[in-house]
């Protein structure tokens, strides 16, 4: 299957690296931020880059257009993300375009969901958390099936 891995740079990318094995035999590509590790990303698979969104509303709106163009071109069957906010446009498009989605809340979230987690929860097909105690902060859809480490 064709799988779109969405992640911001830094810790979220490091977490994504820990689950790469799960996609062996599948065609993967990245959608991520420009960073000092852009080359590391491209060594693993082809990648699309954009500027860091953060809490910037205009950049988030631009990211919705950017994400749509990538999804239209690549037509992946699955979108997977461990955060952060760069996942938001992809998961909403995934929901509208009926693409399977797996959101895994970052390992750094033990008791409270991230803002991205809260925004993505309603539209994610599979919503996973990496700590059992975080289930208390989520709706019924959330599941705990283990962690990246």
């Amino acid at each position, binding site marked *: *299957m064709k*799988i779109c891995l969405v992640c911001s740079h830094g*810790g979220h990318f490091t*977490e994504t690296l*820990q689950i790469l094995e799960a996609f062996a035999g599948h065609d993967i590509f990245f959608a991520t931020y420009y960073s000092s590790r852009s080359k590391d990303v491209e060594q693993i698979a082809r990648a699309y880059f954009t500027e860091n969104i953060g809490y910037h509303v205009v950049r988030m709106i631009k990211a919705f257009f950017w994400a749509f163009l990538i999804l239209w071109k690549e037509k992946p069957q699955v979108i997977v993300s461990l955060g952060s906010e760069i996942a938001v446009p992809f998961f909403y498009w995934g929901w509208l375009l009926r693409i399977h989605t797996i959101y895994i809340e970052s390992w750094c979230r033990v008791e*409270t969901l991230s803002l991205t987690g809260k925004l993505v929860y309603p539209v994610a097909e599979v919503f996973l958390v990496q700590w059992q105690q975080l289930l208390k902060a989520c709706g019924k859809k959330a599941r705990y099936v*283990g962690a990246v480490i």
Partner: protein
Amino acid sequence: MILVTVGTHPQGFERLVRAADELAARLEEEMVIQYGSSSYLPRFAARSFDFTSSEEMKRLMKQARIIISHAAAGTIITALLLEKPLILVPRSKKYKESLDDHQIQLTSILHDENRAIKILDPQIETLSNAIRIIPELSIQPRKPNSLLFYIRQKLIDWEKR
């Protein structure tokens, strides 16, 4: 060598950088401090810098005997994979080091699981105590990865449809 790192956060982490640097003045062991956006500039550490490449950071982490870090997932995962003794000092919202206190929660659970030492109040004394008790800390390697198995299974299910 003891490596101190505060990552690439836009906020500084003066409390940790200052305490680590003051400790460096008293320790015989070499200390390397990556101080990020902190306004306090280390004076006593053998080497200090604001940012560097991820390759260089990984090399320093491999070389280090002990890693003292803010509680960010990237650094912690790398340190655990390298099986390095880890002292975690979480960033706190109260001191404007972070937007929320999720680092405190992560540090507490890792401390309870015996995978890292927690220090909420970085001072010369608390840091040097932690360094002293490091040999007693049993670092657990990776847990069996049931998450990978779950994802793989999910993909197989979807592929069948």
